[in-house]
Structures are given as structure tokens and as C-alpha cells.
């Protein structure tokens, strides 16, 4: 039986990779993938804890996160495509309309 510490360390490592990706990459698609990575890191902790406690709540939460992630990916991709159509680029540094 693998101790929970390893799972948590793996999840933390995945989460940090995802977070750095979100913060530093300029391609919107890569940013999205990194977000997915972060979500999956969280899922991993949920499942690890659920397994440790023998409690179904963690599984439920993981499914919920996956469902939300799927929805978010669908909407996010639609936005990215719309932005690409209007600007010809998916570089997040160029998209600063939130300022106005």
C-alpha cells in the first residue's frame, strides 16, 4: 500500500506545474490545458483522501470537478475560437480588454 504522502506530493507537483503554466504561458490553449492539470491534481487529492477514509464523498467531488471541467473546457474553447476569429491570435498577452 502506497502511503498517502506520495499521492499528495504528486498532486502538489502537478498543481504547481499547472499553476506555473497558467501564469507564464502565452498561448491560450496551453493555459487551458494547464488549468485542466490543476483540476486533475485536485481530483487526485480528493480520490486519495477518499481512499484513505473509505468515504464516497471524495469520489462524488471528483466527478463533480470533472463535469465542471468539461463544461468549462467547452465554453473556454468556444471563447478561444471566437477570439481567434476576431483577432487572428490566441496570445493572452494581446487580450487585455478587461482593462476597459
Amino acid at each position, binding site marked *: 500500500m502506497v502511503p498517502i504522502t506520495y499521492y499528495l506530493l504528486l498532486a502538489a507537483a502537478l498543481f504547481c506545474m499547472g499553476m506555473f503554466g*497558467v501564469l507564464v504561458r502565452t498561448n491560450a490553449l496551453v*493555459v487551458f490545458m494547464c488549468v485542466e492539470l490543476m483540476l486533475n491534481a485536485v481530483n487526485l487529492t480528493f480520490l486519495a483522501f477518499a481512499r484513505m477514509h473509505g468515504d464516497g464523498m471524495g469520489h462524488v467531488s471528483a466527478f463533480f470537478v470533472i463535469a465542471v471541467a468539461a463544461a468549462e473546457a467547452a465554453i473556454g474553447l468556444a471563447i478561444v475560437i471566437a477570439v481567434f476569429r476576431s483577432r487572428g491570435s490566441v496570445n*493572452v*498577452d494581446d487580450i*487585455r*480588454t*478587461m482593462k476597459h
Partner: protein
Amino acid sequence: MDGIVEFFRTAPIPPDVFAPSLGLIILLPLLGAFVCGVFGKWLGRANVHLVACSAIAGAFVLSVLAFWATSDAAGGRVVSMANPFGLERDVIRYAIAHDYGTWFAAGDFRVNFGLLVDHLSGILLLIITGVGFLIHLYSTSYMEHDDGYWRFFAYLNLFVAAMLTLVMADNLVLLFVGWEGVGMASYLLIGFWYTDSAKAWAGRKAFVTNRIGDFAFLIATFLLILTVGAFNRQADARDFNAASSSRARYAQGIEQKGPVTFKGLEKMALALPEGTGGAVSLATPIEAGPLSGYTFGGVMTAIMLLFLLGAAGKSAQLPLYVWLPDAMAGPTPVSALIHAATMVTAGVYLFCRMSSLLVLSPTAMATIAIVGALTSLLAALIAFAQDDIKKVLAYSTVSQLGIMFMGVGMGVFWAAEMHLMTHAFFKACLFLGAGSVMHGNADETDIKKLGGLWKEMPWTHGTFLVATLAITGIFPIMSGFFSKDAIFHGVHHNHLHGLEWVSTFVYVMGLLITASTAFYMSRVYLLTFTGPRSKEAKVPHAHESAWHMTLPLVVLAFLSFVTFAYALPLMPRTGGGMQPVFENFLSPVLRPAEAVARAAETVKLDTSTPAITDYLFAWLVALSGGAAAAFAYLKYFPSRAGQPVPAFARAVRRTAQNKFYVDELYEFILIRPVKFVAFILFRVVDALVIDTVLVRGTAYVTEKVGLGLRRLQTGDAQAYAAIMALAILGGAVYALLQVLS
């Protein structure tokens, strides 16, 4: 003869049937004011005149009925009603009243909307509505060419409604409503031609001066409420024995009608005098409440002095008389109605109404009499040198009001009231006559530029002559002579306990005033109507005014002639001898005051009838003033025409013409410092602290902070995410540290 007496003794509508309709007397002019003010523009001239005049005429008819009802003596029993503050047998005679229920109540304080008409307020009702109607009629012609005629009539009606409230109120608070109402209406009317800034300023001056007095009035009312409360707690049954009442009934009356009802105050005054053997007398200190430690007598004096200040504002006495001459800026009918006949006499009315409380305080009475005498003499001296016909009449009004105050202050209430009545007639006649003169001479008001009008304006001349003779007393069979002399006779013979010198002082002043009045009024008459027409006149020939204007003049002149009959001692006195008709007539109202004065021994009221020599002396004094004027203006000055005037005479004249620089004195002592303080407050508090530091400072700080914060908003989603991540990291580190330690 018996038939006539019987007719006048039986009211057409019985008192108890008529009483609930008393409110209509006020409501009619109020309705007229509403209709004229709101719809006047669309109604047209004739309809506005009709509405305004008929409202006053209706009020006059109702007033006559009300007055008649107070004298109803069907079956030999005079009209009488229960006194809520006394025993069942302790009734109020010759009065009708109606209580419309609670107006407002707060805790144990309560004010009822109660109206009372007795002989005192009845006379005033007739003056207000009667003279008021004549002046409305006069105004229909006088204001014919004015665009604001509908506004004018609305204000006039409003004024009459407020004045009627003032005199019909059965308690001080309701009286104050009318008191403020006439103040407001007079402000509107004085500043009626508001596009002329000088006239608007005159209205403002009147308003501000009156406010000072009204403030004193309010404080006096509050003190009185506290005193009544203290008296109600502290007095025992023996106090009330003197007032032929019982303590329980008094407390019950206060619960029903409130502490400021005149009848209740009268009962308190009857119970307060010294030596009745009860727990409370004038020298008793008040035990509890805000006034604790002060004696009843001391508080009463303070109350009366504050009321004096209030009355001085409304009735143009020292030190607040300065507004009245300036108020002549308003239309002439306003001067006649407000500044001669009704509003300015409110102070006299107030003191007659409160006479039973007033006689408790000789100090206050002496102050009133001296203030009246000084005001009267000062105003008379200023009137000597004024050339504006309306200004002379205005100062004459101030002077005559001073005479009334002398009468009130020395306890001759009936004579003061009678002079109020006769003054209303002859002064209204004089003012309207002056208006007629102005109307016929292209608004010329300088009497030096008139002259010789007796041929061209016969009706105005005749009525003006009658009124002049009435006010001066040069020709004795006139009302003014008798009413003035009744006051001076009473002043001479009444004595204030401990202040006997006041009587002599005021009487000597009175003689001076009589001579002065005769002089300056003769001067106005002679310069305006006799002699050749002045070369500086604006129009070569004056024209007589329309009948709308001359008819009121004739009626007023007639009234100012015939009312002398009231001063003749024709009625039997209870103690033997005869007494003047008017004294007899007012005795139901003034009897409590006499009883209080007798019991408290504060005033010795002399009720002796003037002898023929008294009249002769007064007549000679008046005649000397008139003769001096006649000599000066008919003989002396015309013969000296073209010669230089001596320097000292010019200096004296200039001083009098400038009103003894009283206005300038006020300007220097009061207005400048107040303006200076206001300037400092404006510069430091308003401009610096509020405007600069608080208002602009807040805006400045917000703007700068915003500028700084703007740099944080880049629009870069990744930067926001980084901040979020850092914050989460910080939180995580903090949580970790907490867990580990």
C-alpha cells in the same frame, strides 16, 4: 324705546345655536384667500373683487351675529356659559364659545381648538371685518391698474383670516397661530411690489424685527405653561377658595382644555394674590421643576416682560418700532388695514386679554407704561420733521400705539381698548385719505409739493379734516379726544404699588404727546390741503377719487366722529355714580383683573369719572399744539419764504428727519457686529473648513488614491492570476505555520 332695547337684547340666532358656527368667521376669508390665490388669474378682476369682498362681508355679517349673541338677554337672563375651571355657579357672562376638540396633545400638555367671543374680542371682530371690508372696497379702486390684483386680494383675505384667529382664540397657542399668521401676511403685503428691491427689503425688515418679538413671546408661553404646572401641583384648596373654585375642578379644566386657556390663566391669577391664606402666593418659591427656586411673582414678572417684548415687535414699540415706518412701502390700503387698524394693535389686545395676570406684576406694568410713553414721545418728535405724508402717519401710529401701551401699563384697560377702536377708525381714514391724495396727484407723497387740495378733492379733504380733528383733539366732540383723555385720566389717577412716580411721569409725557400730536397732524393737514398749490406739484390739478374710495372714507370719518359717545359717563356704576359706556361694556371681561388688583394690592385702580376741568385742561393742551402749528405754517413760514433758515433749526430738523439716527444706531450696535461675525463664519467655517477641507479635500484624496490604484489594473488575466496565486500561497504558508506551532 323699550321696543328698541328689546330688539338689541335679543339675538336673531340664539347663542347656543350660533356658537358652533364661530369657525365660519375664520373660514370664510380663508376660503376667499384660497380661491383668489389659486384661481385668481383665471377669474378676472371683477370676480376676484367679488370673491374677496363678499368673503369679508360674510365674515362681517357673522361677526355682527356673534357680537349680538354675546349680548343676548332673552327673558332678562344674559347669555352665560359654564366655566370649565370654576364651580358650576361660576359662569362666564356675555361670551359665547365653542370648542372644536383637541388640536394636539403631548403628555399632559394639551391644546384645544377653542374659539371665544366676548365683548373684548367682539369689538375687535367688528373692527377687523368692518374696517377690513371698507378697505377691501377701497382697494378695488386703488389697485385697479395693478397686475397682481388677485395676489393682493388673496393676501388681504389671508391677513383677515389670521387676524380673526388671533382675536377669537381662547388659548395662547391658537392666538400665537394668528400672531404668526398676521406676521406672514404683513410680510407678503409690505413686500407686495417685490420687484422693487427697497420694498422687498422693507418687508424683510418687518419680518425679522417681528421674529425677535415672537421668540420672546414663545419663551413667555413656555414659562407660563411651566408656572401653571407648578401652581397646579403646589397650591392647596385654600388658594382656590379665593378664586371661587375648587382644586379638583381646576385640574379637571386643565385636563380638558390645556394649561394655556385664558379662562384657566384668569383663575390662576385670581388664586395667586398674597394674603389669601393658602400654600401659594406671589412670594412663594416654586418647589420643583425647571423653575424651582424662583418665586411665582418673579416668574410672572419675567413672563410679562417677555410678552412685552413680543408685543413690542408686533405693535412697534421701543426697541422694535423701526419696521413700521419702513412698512409704508406696501400699498396704501395695507398701511391702513395692517399698520393702523388691526395687526399693530395685537399687542394691546394681548395685554387686555391677559389683564388679570398683568396686574400681578407692578414692575412689568411700569415697564410697559414707560416703554409706551417713551415710544410715543420719540415717534411724535420724529413725525414733526417728516415730509412723506405716509411716513408722518406711520410715526403717528407708533405714537398712538405708545399711548395705548401707557393705558395698558397703568391698568386702564378699557380706555386702551377704546383708543384702539377709535384709532382704528380715524387712522384708517387718514391712511386711506393719504392714499386718495396720492391717487389723485400722480403718487406724490411729499406734503411740501402738495397744497390747496381742499377745492379739488372735497370728499377726501372733508374726511381727512374730520379724522385729523379726531386724532388731535383740537375740536373736542370727537372720539379721539375722549379716548385719549380717558387713558390720560386713568394714568393720572391709577397708582402702581411701590412705583408711584411712574404715574406722574407718564402723565406729564402724555401731555407733551398730546401737544405734539396736535402740532404734527395740523402740519400735515395744513400743508396738504390748505394754501396755494405748490409749484413743484407733479400734476396741475388733482382729481377726486372714485366712489369706491370716497365711500369708505365717509363711513370711517362718520365712525371716528360718533364713537365719542362710548366715552360719555352714561351708565350707572354699581357703587353709585356714573361710568363711561365703554367701561361698563367691557366690565364682564375686565372684572377678574379688577378683582386681582384689589386682592393683590399691586395696583390702585381709580374708577373716578373725569370732571369737566380735566377735559378742559386736556383740550387746552391739544389746542396749544394745534395753534402752534397753525401759527407756524399759516403765518410765520409763508412770511419768511426765501429767507435763510437759522443753522440750529436746520440741525434739529435734520436730526428729527433722520429719525434721531436710531436706525443707524442699530446698524452700528447690532447689525455691523452680527454681519462681521457672519463674515468670519462664512470665510473660516464655510469657505475654508467646509468647502475647502471637507468637500474639495475629500474629492482630492479620492482622486489621488484612484490614480494610484489605476496602475494595478492592467487587464492582464495572468497578472491577476499571479496575484491570486501569491495570496493563496501566503494563506497556505500562514495556515502551515499555525498548524506547526
